[in-house]
């Protein structure tokens, strides 16, 4: 049933009207509400939506039309009262939010502030960061493209002032249980993380949260901190801080391959720690790492499990497999057999589309054990570069968050739309057997990343079935049940669409590799 209300010569701004629409939508019996000015185009829009009646069609350009789709006539009066009440309200002010015209004024106006998030173009970030560091305030620099020399200068200055510079290019931290950047809602607990990898920090923290334990602090250092030019200044500060922190019982260090000199400095620092230290350096030499007395982990999942075991007093325990802990082995073998029996003879390749850079690199390292020729847009030893990043070749893993894909577009963690055409393309390739995906949840991430891709997944599965083929889609979701997206809701959506969901990105990569390996043997 459609009812329209015309308010002659009434104007309000769009956000105010949208807020009213959202509140009216909550009234029981309201199916849909649209509020627009009575222009011809808006009337055509209402007509297309089936929400126009004679009264609305007579509205003029200066009249406001409130069009309602309702289930029963009885709710009309209640809605009218509510709308009138809402329209009479003054626009709300943002009482919690204080805007300052300049950083200097903000620092004067809010003397209690001890952390500043800096997100300005890279050329200006160092200057702004310097201002806060000089005031003894920690700086979280979200901006990237900050010149290396400026990063070194900032970090040296910060270190001398006893404050942290997280970044530049830092996307993830958890300070005093407050997520900064993109980070999952994890419970507070005894494990402290310091890392030069945003998705790495988040993946470890989320897995720890799932075990029932929590995180004391997670300090992002920025991707270049462990280069020899910077020398791991923030990493060293982070280790010192967590070592002294009463709430931290176990330290976890995560990083992409560091500079050799910096690695030695970090290992030396770790050797002085009294608390257990778990270290995950992608592709790192296990023996070298363990010489420092740390517990080396080859995957993010293993790092999380080792840290949990340390807290629980289980030592480095044999329960943690050195590769990837695939539990329920029989079930997995039967799953692999069932998948490979459905493939067509031409299907032999794996394609991976990743939102998390570290998750992609980790998958490459795992899959190298199963697949010889692995192509990627990520530059790693023994990994073949793609001639054109938009065209996959044979077995191929793509970091969709890389600069070549995000120029002028949001990162796929913020908006996974960018993955849709590529997913369709990879799934449609008759030589592809397995598609590997990751999803990242948390504050700051897209509110329904699986929802964005589910239609494409369903369509591709349907198309493949029609062509008498089978496509295995293997996915992992990095997040927690307390994330705004809810981990279990997202995982269930995938399962309902016949996607194999693994508990971690490492397990997803491992399973994908095994499927391709077994298919090759067949």
């Amino acid at each position, binding site marked *: 049933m459609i009812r329209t209300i015309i308010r002659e010569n009434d104007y309000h701004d769009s956000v*105010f009207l949208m807020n009213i629409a959202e509140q009216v939508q909550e009234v029981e019996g309201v199916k849909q509400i649209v509020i627009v*000015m009575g222009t011809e185009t808006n009337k055509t829009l209402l007509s297309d939506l089936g929400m126009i009646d004679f009264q609305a069609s007579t509205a003029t350009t200066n009249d406001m039309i409130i069009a309602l789709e309702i289930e029963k006539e009885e709710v009309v009066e209640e809605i009218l009262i509510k709308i009138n009440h809402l329209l009479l309200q003054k626009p709300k002010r943002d009482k919690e939010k204080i805007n300052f015209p300049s950083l200097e004024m903000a620092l004067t106006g809010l003397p209690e502030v001890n952390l500043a998030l800096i997100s300005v173009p890279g050329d200006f970030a160092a200057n702004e960061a310097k201002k806060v560091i000089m005031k003894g305030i920690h700086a979280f620099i979200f901006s990237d493209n900050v010149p290396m020399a400026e990063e070194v200068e900032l970090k040296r200055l910060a270190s001398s002032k006893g404050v942290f510079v997280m970044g530049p290019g830092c996307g993830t931290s958890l300070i005093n249980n407050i997520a900064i950047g993109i980070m999952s809602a994890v419970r507070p607990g005894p494990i402290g993380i310091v890392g030069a990898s945003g998705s790495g920090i988040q993946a470890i923290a989320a897995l720890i949260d799932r075990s029932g334990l929590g995180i004391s602090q997670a300090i992002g250092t920025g991707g270049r901190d462990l280069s020899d030019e910077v020398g791991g200044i923030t990493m060293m500060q982070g280790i010192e801080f967590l070592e002294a922190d009463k709430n931290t019982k176990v330290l976890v260090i995560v990083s992409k391959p560091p500079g050799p000199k910096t690695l030695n400095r970090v290992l030396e620092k770790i050797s002085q720690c009294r608390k257990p230290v778990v270290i995950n350096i992608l592709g790192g030499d296990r023996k070298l790492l363990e010489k420092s007395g740390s517990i080396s982990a080859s995957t993010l999942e293993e790092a999380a499990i080792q840290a949990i075991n340390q807290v629980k007093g289980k030592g480095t325990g044999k329960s943690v497999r050195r590769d990837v802990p695939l539990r329920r082995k029989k079930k997995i073998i039967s799953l692999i057999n069932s998948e490979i029996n459905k493939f067509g003879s031409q299907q032999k390749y794996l394609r991976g589309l990743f939102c998390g850079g570290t998750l992609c690199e980790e998958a490459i390292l795992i899959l190298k054990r199963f697949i010889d020729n692995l192509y990627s847009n990520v530059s790693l030893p023994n990994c073949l570069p793609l001639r054109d990043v938009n065209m996959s070749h044979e077995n191929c893993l793509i970091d969709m968050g890389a600069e070549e894909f995000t120029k002028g577009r949001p990162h796929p963690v913020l908006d996974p739309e960018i993955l849709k055409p590529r997913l369709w393309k990879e799934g449609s390739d008759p030589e592809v057997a397995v598609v590997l995906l990751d999803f990242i949840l948390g504050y700051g991430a897209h509110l329904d990343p699986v929802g964005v891709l589910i239609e494409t997944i369903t369509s591709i599965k349907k198309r493949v079935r029609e062509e008498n083929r089978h496509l295995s889609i293997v996915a992992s979701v990095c997040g927690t049940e307390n994330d705004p997206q809810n981990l279990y809701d997202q995982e269930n959506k995938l399962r309902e669409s016949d996607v194999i969901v693994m508990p971690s990105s490492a397990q997803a990569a491992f399973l994908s590799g095994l499927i391709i390996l077994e298919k090759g043997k067949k």
Partner: protein
Amino acid sequence: MISLKAISIGHQVAELFTSRTDGVIHSVNKNSFYCLFPKKQMLLVYEKKYGGIPFGISLNQCSKDYFCDFGLRKNMHVKLRENYLYIPEGKFVLDLHGGRVWVSRIENNHIFSVSEVMSNLDYATKLSLMNGSMYGLGKLLFYQEHLICGKDVSANGLNSFCRFSIKPVSNLMAAIERNDFHLLERSAKKLIGLGMGLTPSSDDMLIGLFSTLYFFHRHIKFNYISSLANVLYFLSIGKTTLISEIFLKSVCQGERFEILDDAIMAVLSTSKDSLYVKIKKVLSIGSSSGTEMILGILLGIRLMLKILEAPIYKS
């Protein structure tokens, strides 16, 4: 009695004061209010952060209060006398003494590097997606290249306004590129007046777009731009809200808006010095209007770059 001082005065305002006509308050917003005079003449009183506007008076709003808190209400009588604007019922006086007449200061020689502009366009897009409003056409920022090149856009995740405007916007781009008046008419008819609020979203996008086209027109004579703009203006008469119609009229006549010019110049500038600030300023206009204006500006610049790539303009 509230007494405020003008900072800058648009050149059309001087004509209004000469005629000594009376009007009424048309609408009151947080940071501005509109006065309506006979013959659809509009006067906008607004905070100085929005820069110069041809039919506006900007003032330094020292108080943190919004205009609606001053007690100004719709339909209150407005008098223009000598150098004062009075609203007796609202006990409000605006003193024009000392205010400077604002004149657009676009430089005629503007050299830019295409690669730098492309990088600035990408940066401005990111910034707008992060800080803009997505209630109106904001999400079309994701699909600028699609709209310019006429590629298909997935409607999934888009609101009704976006979905409804994909094809007309795409056609509008093609119409401007090909100088096709019939296509312009068909597409503009589907856009003018589309959206919520005081200035419908599509109109705001058109304002940004045509401001940009005229900006280029000043440097490289695209003579047909003014003809296309004329068509747009005539199509808008009576088809959208009064305020939107007046803004569209101004833009279609080649009038400049300082805040939009600053943003266009910042995107075209070879330095990123002011891009962040200028884009954020436009984004702060209205509740979602600024985002749609930026969409129009970015589409306009991308379109002009595409047109300039044509061999005839390359030299």
